[in-house]
C-alpha cells in the first residue's frame, strides 16, 4: 500500500507551491488515476512517490517504509516518466541491457515478450519510434522490472484506442498475476474513467477529491424541480445547492447526495413553503461535470478557469 500523508513541495526556483498538504492512500491491487490540469502537481507527486524528489514536508510510505534513498523500496517501484530518457542510438536491446544493469529483478525475457505483444522491433533505433511506440517500450520496460508498484506519468495520453486497450489488458494481467498496484496520472478524464477504479483529483497542488469512480458517478446530480406555484420564494439552502436558477415554477440546481434523499428533502421544503411539488428529475452528471462542480464549489477555480468552463 502507498500512503501519502500531508505531502507538500515548494519549488523555490519557480516560486510555486506544487503540492500543498496532500494525503492519499493507494490500496493494493488497484488502478488509481491522478487527474488534474497542467501544473496541478501530478508529476511532482509521482516523482516524490518514486523517490526522485524529496518532499519538503509530509511522508510517502510504501508498505510502511519511506521511499527516498531506500533501495529495497525503490526496487519495488517502477516509474515511467512523461518524457523518458533514451541514450542516443538506443535500441530496445540496449534498453533492456541498461535496465538489467540497473535493476537486479529486471526480466529480459518478459521484456521481449511484451515488446512482441506490442509489435515492437528490438533492433530498430528508438529515435525512429513514434510517440505511441515509445510509450509502449516504456510500459514493457516498467512491467519487466518485477516491481509491485507502477507509477505512470501521462503514459496513456496520446495512445490510440487499440493500443490503450492492449495496455489496459496488460496492466490488469499484471495486477492479477503479480499483485501489482498502479498509480497513473493524466489530464484526460475520459481515458482514466475507462481504466481506473479510483480517481484522485488535484488542482493547484491541493487535493480536491479522492474516491471510487462508481461512487463518484452517482454522487452529484443535476436536479430539475417543478413546483405547483411560483418558486421564487422557495429557499433550498438546506440542500446546499450549486448553480441554482429559478424561472417561474421551475428550478434547476446541482446538489451532492443520494437522489432519493434529496427528493425527500424537496418534498419537506415544498410542504413548508406551502408550495406543492409537481415533478423532480435527477440527471447524473458526467465525471467531468462532477469535477468541475467540486472545483467550483470548493473555491479552487479562479475566474479565468470559470470563464473557460
Amino acid at each position, binding site marked *: 500500500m502507498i500512503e501519502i500523508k500531508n505531502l507538500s513541495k515548494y519549488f523555490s526556483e519557480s516560486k510555486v507551491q506544487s503540492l500543498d498538504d496532500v494525503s492519499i492512500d493507494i490500496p493494493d491491487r488497484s488502478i488509481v488515476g491522478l487527474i488534474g490540469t497542467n501544473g496541478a502537481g501530478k508529476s511532482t507527486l509521482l516523482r516524490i512517490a518514486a523517490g526522485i524528489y524529496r518532499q519538503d514536508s509530509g511522508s510517502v510510505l510504501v508498505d510502511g517504509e519511506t521511499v527516498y534513498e531506500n533501495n529495497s523500496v525503490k526496487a519495488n517501484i517502477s516509474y515511467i516518466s512523461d518524457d*523518458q530518457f533514451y541514450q542516443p542510438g538506443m535500441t530496445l536491446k540496449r534498453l533492456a541491457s541498461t535496465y538489467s544493469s540497473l535493476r537486479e529483478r529486471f526480466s529480459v525475457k518478459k521484456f521481449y515478450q511484451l515488446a512482441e505483444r506490442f509489435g515492437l522491433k528490438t533492433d530498430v533505433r528508438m529515435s525512429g519510434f513514434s510517440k505511441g511506440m515509445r510509450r509502449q517500450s516504456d510500459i514493457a520496460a516498467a512491467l519487466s522490472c518485477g516491481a509491485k508498484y507502477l507509477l505512470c506519468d501521462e503514459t496513456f495520453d496520446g495512445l490510440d484506442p487499440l493500443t490503450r486497450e492492449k495496455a489496459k489488458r496488460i496492466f490488469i494481467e499484471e495486477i492479477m498475476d503479480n499483485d501489482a498496484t498502479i498509480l497513473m496520472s493524466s489530464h484526460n478524464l475520459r481515458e482514466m474513467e475507462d481504466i481506473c477504479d479510483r480517481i484522485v483529483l488535484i488542482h493547484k497542488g491541493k487535493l480536491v477529491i479522492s474516491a471510487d469512480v462508481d461512487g463518484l458517478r452517482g454522487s452529484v446530480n443535476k436536479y430539475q424541480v417543478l413546483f405547483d406555484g411560483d418558486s421564487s420564494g422557495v429557499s433550498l439552502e438546506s440542500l446546499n445547492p450549486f448553480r441554482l436558477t429559478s424561472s417561474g415554477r421551475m428550478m434547476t440546481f446541482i446538489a451532492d447526495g443520494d437522489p432519493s434523499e434529496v427528493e425527500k428533502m424537496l418534498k419537506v421544503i415544498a410542504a413548508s413553503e406551502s408550495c406543492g411539488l409537481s415533478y423532480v428529475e435527477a440527471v447524473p452528471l458526467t465525471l467531468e461535470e462532477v469535477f468541475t462542480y467540486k472545483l467550483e464549489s470548493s473555491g479552487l477555480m479562479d475566474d479565468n478557469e470559470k470563464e473557460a468552463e
Partner: protein
Amino acid sequence: MEYARKCIRTAYFGVKNNFVLLGLFVLGLDIIAPLLAILQVFNEKVHSAESIPDMMNQSITFISGFSALLAGIIIPLMLFGFVYSRRQSDFYNSMPIKRGQYFIGYSISGLFIFTVPYIITRIIFVLFCSVAGVQNVSLFSGMWQAILVYIIVYASMTFAIMFSGSGLSAILTLALMNVFTFVLLFGAINLGWRALDSSAYDSLAFSVSYSFMPLSSAYFLTVNDFAYLPAYLILTAAELVLAFVMYRYRKGETTLAVAFPKTRYILQYMIMFVTAFIATCKSFYYDNFQNIWSNIILSAIIIVVLFVVLNMLLEKDFRAAFHKIRYLFIFAAGYVVVVAGIYFVVNNCLPYYITPIQTDAVRVEIIRSVYSEDVIAGDARKHEEWTDENGDECRYVRDRMETFYITDPEQVRYVRDYVYKYMNRPSVTDEWQDLQNCVEEHKPYYYMHIVLLDLKDGITLDKDMSMAYRESSVMDSYYCSINYITDTQDIRYFHDVCRDFTWRNEVFNEDGSSRIVFDEFEY
C-alpha cells in the same frame, strides 16, 4: 557488503555506458600518445645531450601528464553530466541505486576508463621503442604520477560539477578554483609593490597558490616536484567529500546554472572580483597610479560587463541582464573598500620584507651591462644579445662591477630596507622603457643583486675563505632579489649613505671561484 556490491555493479554500468569514451581514450592514449612521444624524441635528439631512453621516458611522462589532466576534466563531465538533465536525472534517480552508490561507482568507472588504457599505452610504448631499437625504456616511469594527476584533477572537476548547474558553469567554477588564490595573492602583491618586497612575497605567493591549484599538479608531479603533494592530497580528499555531500543533497529538479541557488551569487561575484582585481592590480603595477582615472574606468567597465554577461549566463535568460542591479552597486562599493584596504592598510601592516631564512650576511652585487661591439666568445654568462625595433642586434657585456658583504645585522636591515623603500622605483613600464633606451642609446645600465645568506652553523665570514656563490657546503639557503637601476645617481647615493658601514670586498680568483678578503672598502 550489499552497498559495495551495488557500487561495483554501478561501476560496471558506468564503463559499459561510456564505451565510446573508453574507446576514445584507448585510441588517444594507446596509439597516438606513444607515437607522439617517439616522434618528439627523434625530432629533438640532435639538440640534446641526453640519452634516447631518458628522453623517451621524459617525453611519455610529459604527454601522460597532459592526458591525465584532460582525462580528469572530461571523464567526470561524461559520467556525471546527467545531473544537468532533468530527464536523465529522473531516470537514474528512479532506479534502486542510492546517490552515494552512483558517486562511488562512477568514480571507480572513471578510474578504470583512464587507468586501463594508460597502462596499455605504456606497454605499447615500450614495444614501439623496442621495435625502433631503443632499449631501457621504463614501463613504470611516471605512471603513478599520471594516475595521481588524474585523481587530483578528477576531484576538482567533480566538485565543480556538483556545485554547478551546467557544463559551462562547471568549467567556470573549475577555472575560478584554480585562479582565485593566485589572483588574490599576486594581485595584492602587485597592488602593494611599493610597500612590499614583491619578489620576496612572490615566492611565498607561488607556494601558497600552487597548493590550491589542482590543475598545476599536472606540471609539478610530472616533473617529479612533490613539494605540493601533501596540499594536493588534502585538497583532493576535501573536494571529494564535499562533492559527495553536494550530490547527496542536490535537488534533482534544478535547472539553474548552479545547483544550490544561493551559491549562484557567490560564483558570480567571485568571478567579477577576480577579473576586476587582476585588471586593477596589473594596471596599477604598470602605471603606478599615474593614470588613476583610466584604472578606475577600466575596472568599472569590467565589473559592469561581467555583471550583465554572468546574469544572462547563470539565469539562462537574456532578459536577466540587469536583474538585482542594486547588488552591483553594493559590490562596487565593497570592491573599492577592499582594494583601498589592501593598498592603504594591509600592505602597510605586513612586514615589508619576508624571507624564510635566517639572514647571517648580505652580499651586494652591482652589475653593469655595457654595450659592446665585440663578440665575447666562449663565456656565455657575460654576453647577452638584444634585438631592437629595427632588427639590429646589440651585444652586451656584463661586468660584475662591485661585490661586497655586510655582516652586521643592523646594517643588513638598513641596506635591505633602503634599497626597496628609498631608491628610485619607477613603474614597471617606465623601468622597461629605461632599459630599452639604454640599449638603444648604447648606455650602460645597472642592476643590483641583494642576496641574503643563511650560513651554516659554525660558518662565519670573519676569515679568509673560499666561497662560491650558492655553495651548499657554506650556506643552508639564500634568497636573492634583483633591482634594476638605470640611474647611476642611485648607486652613488646608496654608497654615500652606507659610507660608514663596514664592507667586505670580494676578490675573484682566476679560475672563477671567489674568496673573501677582509679589507676595509671605501667607495
